[in-house]
């Protein structure tokens, strides 16, 4: 955390610990929000409303939000709760993207420095995650999130996120995944070939000849729904991820992003980013490519573990250009080309 004194700046004070409830879980305050869980549900209260989420869904969502450092744009835990990333500051919101909450005057947003929310969410996730539950893996791979407070699972909440500077496998960059470095092939991808490219470098060029088996690399991902940079061409970032079950958040990007389905099949439910109104369903099979416009929010369903290439443009100028209408919210390919 930076030099923020909680007594001088009550608006950005960190998490307040309100003690332990009858179920054994910590009760926490952040600004005027309070966070409480019981044996089945997480309950969030704010001055004009309150909302419940199944404890497992809440923990899967908050875990992604923490791991992705609030990602691009909006991370909705569901149709009511979520965060909006301003890259240095984060909005914690309730009802902000729900037409009904807005109309009822029950929408609420508070803005905090990023580090404050990151620390607060990690503390909540740590306290509320029981020993047998891993919010980052597929349902078939984890025990239950429910019941009275029972131990903790700090390692599951602190997995390192892969961010290649140039490309996975390049000298000094992210290493390949192997059994030896703790990345066995996931059971659901046990049929994915593990052969590596054959590199024959002339003398002096070993550092420039770089190649790896991306599909094998992804077959060894221990987690689901965790886009991670494997190659970077300036601001163009290839962020493939392995998907199984449901994306635990509903993502509303502040820029266009693209999906290229690399294996199997996924279905995306598309809603209006500002109101939650239903817009479309996108079915993606291996090789399919689809843009995700900047004014929608999307949640993906993967009936078996699949490989998805998420392609992002990390330019810091895009959110303002789109928000101001200088750039359209969908790829401008129909008028320009």
């Amino acid at each position, binding site marked *: 955390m930076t030099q923020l004194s909680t007594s001088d700046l009550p608006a950005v004070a960190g998490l307040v610990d309100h003690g332990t409830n009858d179920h054994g879980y910590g009760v926490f305050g952040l600004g005027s929000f309070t966070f409480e869980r019981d044996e089945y549900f997480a309950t969030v209260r704010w001055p004009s409303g309150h909302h419940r989420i199944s404890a497992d869904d809440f923990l899967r969502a908050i875990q992604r939000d923490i791991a992705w450092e609030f990602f691009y744009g909006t991370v909705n835990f569901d149709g009511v709760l979520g965060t909006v990333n301003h890259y240095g500051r984060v909005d914690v919101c309730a009802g902000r993207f729900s037409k009904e909450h807005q109309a009822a005057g029950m929408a609420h947003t508070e803005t905090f420095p990023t580090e404050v929310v990151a620390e607060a969410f990690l503390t909540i996730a740590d306290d509320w995650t029981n020993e047998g539950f891993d919010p980052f893996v597929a349902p078939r791979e984890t025990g239950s999130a429910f019941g009275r407070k029972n131990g903790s699972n700090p390692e599951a909440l602190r997995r390192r996120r892969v961010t290649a500077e140039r490309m996975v496998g390049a000298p000094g960059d992210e290493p390949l995944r192997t059994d030896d470095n703790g990345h066995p092939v996931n059971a*659901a991808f046990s049929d994915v070939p593990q052969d590596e*490219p054959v590199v024959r470098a002339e003398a002096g060029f070993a550092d420039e000849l770089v190649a790896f088996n991306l599909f094998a690399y992804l077959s060894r991902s221990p987690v689901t729904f965790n886009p991670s940079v494997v190659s970077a061409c300036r601001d163009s970032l290839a962020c493939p991820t392995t998907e199984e079950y449901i994306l635990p958040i509903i993502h509303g990007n502040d820029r266009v992003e693209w999906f290229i389905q690399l294996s199997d099949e996924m279905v995306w439910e598309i809603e209006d980013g500002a109101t939650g109104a239903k817009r479309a369903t*996108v079915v993606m099979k291996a*090789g399919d490519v689809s843009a995700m416009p900047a004014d929608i929010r999307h949640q993906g369903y993967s009936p078996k573990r699949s490989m998805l290439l998420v392609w992002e443009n990390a330019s810091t100028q895009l959110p303002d250009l789109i928000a101001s209408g200088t750039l359209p919210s969908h790829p401008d390919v129909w008028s320009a080309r």
Partner: protein
Amino acid sequence: MSSTQLTSPPQTAIVPPGGPTTFGSLAHHPSGGVQVIDDDPRHYVFSNVFAVAKAGAPYLRTAVAINQEYVLEATRAEGPSPWWSAAHDEFVLVMDGRVTVWLRKPTAPLVEPDHDGAVVFTAEPEGVPMGTIEAGRGHMVLLPAHSAYRFVPETSAVLLFQTVAGPQTEFRWNEICQTS
């Protein structure tokens, strides 16, 4: 907990949980699509890498995704390709088939340093060989800035480039995308 498992499961004929993993190919690439509830399907610029690669001439680098200056280009490799070079790193992912990538270090840079995208050369550029990379399905290859590269596929292959839009980038959105 799964984290206690430290070795990969054996590669056997046993069907993995959820069923076999399915990849697309030039020969077989069933496609999904956009089912509109209240939207314009063109906003999703929906296409299929294999269908695009199949429909175009060999080595036509067709944009299937674009975000400002950046593109992903799909192409079908068939016979030896021309040589290409770019001033920035590019990456190629083999989506189907097997190719050998030939890399050369040109005597002098072939492309101006601020030039975007790949530039094509019909003859082998003067320089020294950097080596070769044999890559199959799912393999990603770095095409380093200012190298010259070409592809020689075993038969036919489908390649997906991560690059910047340039003179070689073909835009055929009306032909490749779902429009209604």
